[in-house]
């Protein structure tokens, strides 16, 4: 800019050559704020995508093309990913003036990182939803509009520079997720899940906004930077209001990430909601909640670190311990994965508890890798459960290795990844968060994390065991392809029984089939005892039901997502580009 710029009023400058007004201007009857448009591109892409889908659904015939809505959503997600990477390049590691648009939005590395994450989740979520919705007879533009708006809310939460913006992001995300949870019209459980999520989520939102109001009352600012500068200038000796606000904000966001005392909604919602949406929700809601929590705690309230770190310590411990232990006794796959995601949230909280830049980067890496693992896992569960989500219990994966070896292999990798077995991204993720707390001398927390991982490994490996060592029962009497893999090894890809229209399932001798299959290396009862350890008698019977006979059909888009998730889980586990990317995040605060 040339020297023609002059100050008209406080915070308002006008360039007399170009006539460009910048800053907050009330002079000359004009009001102007500077807008950094590159920071807004994710919102334009996601919100514009949602509007395009809405508009096209209004003008196009009822069922235009198969996969059109999913394709548009994937395109918007790809756009978000690309824009996140472009933002990352443009920011170039510096975060000089991260605030834009009336100080409501950060334009920084962390926001770009999370934009990439949410874009990836949108792409994967839309791609796996397509086949599912088609199978369930639910195809339509609405779920994709909701998914895009949910991602919009998530990006808003991650970019928010104040409590108002954070709250709006939270609400946009939540309302979309409520409707997505209840979207399956033909399943009562889905409606119940949506209702539960709505009621409890609204309560959590109310608690959150109460906390934000208390923080405003104590500091006189709704912006993170305003809060931190007030707290830097003023020492509050009687800070009951501020502490109350902080605790309530932690409760509100802790609900979104399903940390343990606030996790009660999560198993029911995960169990009832449509499976691909659950995968998307587990990735996006958690990442967005943690992004908000990171900014609030690390950026706005660093002066209260000695107060919030013990709180996070307790939340992390409870999440890891209860999530892992309660997952042990679940027989429903989706419910088990819900508790597993609670325990995963505990690990993210461990990283947050460190309260350092290292911890924040560990959290970012963990969330990014978890996105792939959880969406991939739910994609597989979605194709295995069959029409109408008929089979969600553990026995649905029984003998999968012989029915569909590729799918079983993918599930195995994703399970090992979530369990934190070396050579997967899950191991590196757990490693970096535990390393971060060890750097702060938190040996107890590191120990709890490792013990929790050991407990969690059991229920992940149980799934693997059921897939590989428990073949299908050979009892199907009717014609067609007899699914005889009790003694044979894994057959051709997607071998399966085909559409075997055999007798009713109840007549099949499930347990004898089990024993026959397992009999070569182990005695059947030993294996049964291992696989069903911890389950109640009723659940044990459920877990040992014969597997479904329907052939596992994997839609192409879903297969691609699963493949990418598996490859990424291994790639990020054995090589370092992703880790070093997460470690390169330039934080907008000095930590």
């Amino acid at each position: 800019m040339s020297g023609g710029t002059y100050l008209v009023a406080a915070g308002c400058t006008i360039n007399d050559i170009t006539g460009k007004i910048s800053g907050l201007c009330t002079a000359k009857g004009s009001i102007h704020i500077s807008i950094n448009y590159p920071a807004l591109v994710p919102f334009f892409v996601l919100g514009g995508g949602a509007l395009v889908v809405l508009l096209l659904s209004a003008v196009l015939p009822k069922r235009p093309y198969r996969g059109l809505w999913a394709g548009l959503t994937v395109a918007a997600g790809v756009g978000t990913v690309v824009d996140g990477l472009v933002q990352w390049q443009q920011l170039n590691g510096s975060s000089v003036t991260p605030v834009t648009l009336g100080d409501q939005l950060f334009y920084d590395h962390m926001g770009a990182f999370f934009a990439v994450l949410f874009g990836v989740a949108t792409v994967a979520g839309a791609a796996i939803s397509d086949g599912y919705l088609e199978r369930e007879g639910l195809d339509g533009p609405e779920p994709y509009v909701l998914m895009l708006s949910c991602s919009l809310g998530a990006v808003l939460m991650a970019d928010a520079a104040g409590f108002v913006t954070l709250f709006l992001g939270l609400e946009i995300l939540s309302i979309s997720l409520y409707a997505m949870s209840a979207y399956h019209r033909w399943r009562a459980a889905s409606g119940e899940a949506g209702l539960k999520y709505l009621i409890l989520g609204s309560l959590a939102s109310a608690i959150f906004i109460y906390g934000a109001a208390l923080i405003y009352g104590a500091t006189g600012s709704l912006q993170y930077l305003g809060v931190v500068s007030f707290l830097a200038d003023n020492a509050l000796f009687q800070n009951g209001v501020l502490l109350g606000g902080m605790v309530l904000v932690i409760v509100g966001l802790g609900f979104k990430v399903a940390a343990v005392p606030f996790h009660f909604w999560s198993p029911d919602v995960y169990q009832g909601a449509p499976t691909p949406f659950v995968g998307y929700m587990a990735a996006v809601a958690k990442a967005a909640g943690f992004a908000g929590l990171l900014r609030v705690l690390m950026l706005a309230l660093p002066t209260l670190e000695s107060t919030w770190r013990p709180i996070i310590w307790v939340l992390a411990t409870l999440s890891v311990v209860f999530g892992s232990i309660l997952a042990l006794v679940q027989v429903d796959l989706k419910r088990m994965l819900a508790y597993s995601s609670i325990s995963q949230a505990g690990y993210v909280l461990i990283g947050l508890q460190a309260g350092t830049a290292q911890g924040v980067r560990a959290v970012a890496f963990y969330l990014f890798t978890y996105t792939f693992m959880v969406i991939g896992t739910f994609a597989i569960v979605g194709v295995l459960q069959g029409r109408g989500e008929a089979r969600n219990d553990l026995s649905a994966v029984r003998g999968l290795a012989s029915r569909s070896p590729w799918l079983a292999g993918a599930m195995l990798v994703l399970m090992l990844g979530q369990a934190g077995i070396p050579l997967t991204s899950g191991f590196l993720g757990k490693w970096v968060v535990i390393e971060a707390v060890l750097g702060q001398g938190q040996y107890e927390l590191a120990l709890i994390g490792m013990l929790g991982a050991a407990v969690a490994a059991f229920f992940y490996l149980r799934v693997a065991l059921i897939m590989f060592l428990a073949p299908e029962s050979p009892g199907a009497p009717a014609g067609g392809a007899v699914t005889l893999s009790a003694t044979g090894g894994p057959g051709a890809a997607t071998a399966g029984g085909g559409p075997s229209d055999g007798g009713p399932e109840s007549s099949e001798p499930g347990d004898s089939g089990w024993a026959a299959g397992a009999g070569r290396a182990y005695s059947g009862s030993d294996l049964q005892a291992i696989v069903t350890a911890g389950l109640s008698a009723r659940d044990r019977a459920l877990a040992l039901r014969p597997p479904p006979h329907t052939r596992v059909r994997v839609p192409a888009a879903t297969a691609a997502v699963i493949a990418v998730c598996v490859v990424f889980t291994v790639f990020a586990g054995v090589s370092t580009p992703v880790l070093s990317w997460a470690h390169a995040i330039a934080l907008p605060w000095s930590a």
Partner: protein
Amino acid sequence: MSFLAATGLAIGSAWALYGVGTALVLAGALGVVLLRNPVHCALSLVTTIFGIALLFVDQHAYFLAAVQIIVYAGAIVILFLFVIMLLGVDRKEARAPENVRLLVPMALVVGAVAVAELLALARLQYWAAGAKSTTQSLSGPGSDIQKLGQTIFTSYLLPFEMTAALLVIAIVAAVALVRRRSQPPPAPPRKSAGALRHPARAPEAPGAAVRPAATAGAGRSAAAATRSPAAAASTPKTSNETREGRAVS
């Protein structure tokens, strides 16, 4: 300084306003919780909102007081009343009594703990500290309304726009949930194969007949299945067409 020059009358009226407003807020809130008739509950909510408007007046926020009455008492609670009337006032609530029996003491205990915490914090002088607040007009030239408007369209432009987005999304979500589709879910293919093989079974079990017929709409074997009269009767396609036909006529 204006507050030093304030007369005793002004202080007294401010206290009276505060007292009346607080009493209205509390009385209305208790009414919402305790009254049995939902219409009375909604009207109690109006009382609460009116009390809050009085508190805004006490804070010299006259515009907010007016908005509070116009928007909340005038529009939102009236909408509540519409909904209550539409759903039926005199319908008995289906409540499980055993749950309530458990919940009431729990709620009382939790409420008592919360009140005790508040009192303890207030008594122990650990409570209020922070930024200075003002109970007067905002500083600077121009009226409060002007400043409010300028703030909304400058500093709070993004939240303002995002609120609009939020409302649109809420509408989309509501429409996505309540829109009824006449087409039931298609049944699994192997069941449809069974139905084709035994078409005579369909009329015997009407509950079971719906599912195979449902496949017919989407499945490849549509023509074959609809040939069976029982299946045709319950085929979604047909019912869909009749419904549309009625709408046209």
